[in-house]
């Protein structure tokens, strides 16, 4: 197990190194701070003077170490378009994205798991077949299309839900939450649903396939032979083993939810990190883009690592097997 985790840590460090190098290159090669500060009328002497004042005449690896040092201390420079420290922008936007993605995750697990279980247990019934066929529709719905359709029905036609923004928020320390006000909750419904739809379909399909696999296993047949009731078999024997891969997948889902949150935030003008990133991409606001890259890399590395640890904790077979072949993953 330790060998496996050590490999994952090594992989995480490698990812962070490569992404930080890219982010660094982006901020030095593309975003030329000298030009953006001095403008077009500067003389070459001015440029050299400013470059040495900013430390840009030092070798690249010294500047890279410097860049990392600053990033670790949350100094990402100034946003070109907002003219404010990037770190402040990020801190301001983080709560909105985390609330959106976690509510979407709760919805997709809360709806997806029961649907998948129902489809597995009732295999062969017509409605289970219909359920699974319609999951293909769920997978075929791009997030932004779901968002538009929801806005069309619930904002334009019915006028029930707000089509953009986060509603009223309450500040708890530096964290702002929309979960405590009525308008905040109303504003959350559509973006979270738009994000959750395709994940619901994915999770339902996965849970169904896993459950069917488990129900075919020998220990289930023996439990049945021992006269244990069908319901007890399904819920205490089968369900627990079905949920192991679901834990892994929900970690990965959270990653996807955060990635697609960019799209949902753009559709609903949800003031989170994704909208910040899209706006920064549109205006080539390099400090924001490179900070977002670093943050995203750290986030995805952390998610992958937590999933790996959880996997080992939940599945005793992995703990026992790592001495030999287990590390081959």
């Amino acid at each position, binding site marked *: 197990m330790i060998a496996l985790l050590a490999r994952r840590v090594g992989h995480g460090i*490698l990812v962070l190194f490569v992404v930080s190098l890219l982010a660094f290159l982006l901020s030095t090669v*593309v975003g030329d701070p000298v030009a953006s500060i001095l403008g077009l009328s500067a003389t070459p002497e001015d440029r050299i003077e400013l470059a040495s004042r900013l430390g840009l005449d030092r070798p690249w690896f010294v500047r890279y170490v410097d860049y990392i040092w600053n990033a670790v201390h949350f100094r990402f420079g100034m946003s070109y378009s907002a003219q404010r420290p990037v770190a402040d922008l990020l801190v301001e936007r983080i709560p909105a994205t985390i609330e959106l993605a976690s509510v979407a995750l709760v919805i997709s697990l809360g709806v997806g798991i029961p649907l998948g279980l129902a489809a597995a247990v009732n295999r062969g019934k017509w409605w289970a077949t219909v359920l699974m066929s319609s999951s293909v529709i769920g997978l*075929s719905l791009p997030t*932004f299309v779901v968002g538009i359709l929801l806005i*069309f029905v619930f904002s*334009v036609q019915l006028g029930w839900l707000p089509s953009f923004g986060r509603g009223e928020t309450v500040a708890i320390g530096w964290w702002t939450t929309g979960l405590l006000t009525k308008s905040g909750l109303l504003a959350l419904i559509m973006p979270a649903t738009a994000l959750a739809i395709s994940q619901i379909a994915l999770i339902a399909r996965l849970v169904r396939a896993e459950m069917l696999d488990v129900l075919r296993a020998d220990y289930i047949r023996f439990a049945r032979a021992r006269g244990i009731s069908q319901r007890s078999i399904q819920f205490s024997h089968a369900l627990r083993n079905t949920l192991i891969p679901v834990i892994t997948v929900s970690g990965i889902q959270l990653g996807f939810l955060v*990635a697609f949150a960019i799209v949902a935030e753009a559709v609903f003008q949800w003031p989170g990190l994704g909208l910040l990133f899209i706006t920064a991409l*549109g205006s*080539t606001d390099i400090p924001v883009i490179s900070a977002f890259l670093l943050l995203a890399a750290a986030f995805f590395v952390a998610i992958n690592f937590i999933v790996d640890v959880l996997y080992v904790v939940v599945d005793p077979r992995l703990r026992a097997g790592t001495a030999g072949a287990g590390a081959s993953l």
Partner: protein
Amino acid sequence: MSLATPRTGRPALPARVWRAPLTKSFRRAPAAIVGALILVILIGGAVLAPWIAPTDPYDLASLDLFASRLPPIWVEGGEWPYILGTDGQGADVLSLILYGMRTSLSVGVLAVLVSSGLGTFLGLTAGYFGGLAGGIIMRAADIQFTFPAILLALLIGGLGTTLLPTHLQATLAVPIIVAALGLSHWPHFARLVRGAVLVEKTKDYVAAARLAGRGPWTIMRRQILPNVTNAILVLATLDIAFAVMGESTLSFLGFGLPPTEPSLGTLIRTGYAYLFSGEWWLVIFPALTLVLLVFAVNLVGDWLRDALNPRLR
């Protein structure tokens, strides 16, 4: 003896195709038949757009400003031949969709060609030669797998579009988006192909081919690749769904194809602005077409996966 019945006594080609295992499984899969029908109609419409579209939306002379902002024909105020209504310039929405699908489909297919070609090549190299190059290739794939593909596509597409000088943005839009989607998905193919190469490489017939003096690339092409063509085909089919969705998402966000070369995503983006002023047909019809297209590709891809390679499930 007539030419129609060859001497070998084998049944004619149509009969052989009809009885082939793949065709049989297709005939027994209603979902696949539905998907294939939708695909034939949509692809047919896209390919034949210049001939069957009621109007040419890019021929500015044919646009009729008096026929602008018409609703679909079944809504009061709708007019023949504008079945799905018209936009603010008087362009027919149905024609816009047919032409948009052309762009969406060709970008999607091109992107999958890039990702499958690159992934197959790198996977073969990594699997057959191993060593430092193989290690670097698979490390790169691992690093990319840490991130959701859509994020990478957005980053490549977004930076590629905004860093270019303005006059080049429109001309290079298609190559950039094809590269963005292709580069974000090659690791899937590389992993698949590398795994298969590692299995086949140790087999006797590969050793025999090597002893017969065949070079590594010939062995890869003639001995190893045929073992993975089915799996690659399945992945590529399902990948078209990803590519079409990815392209439309990027275009919708403004980092894809420009309004001069509209795809379904671009149409949805421009139409979205009119959703609140009541001209819903400008966004809803392209959106539904997109969903139908992706849905049909997924249906066919799912069937193909089950029929060709049950292990992939």
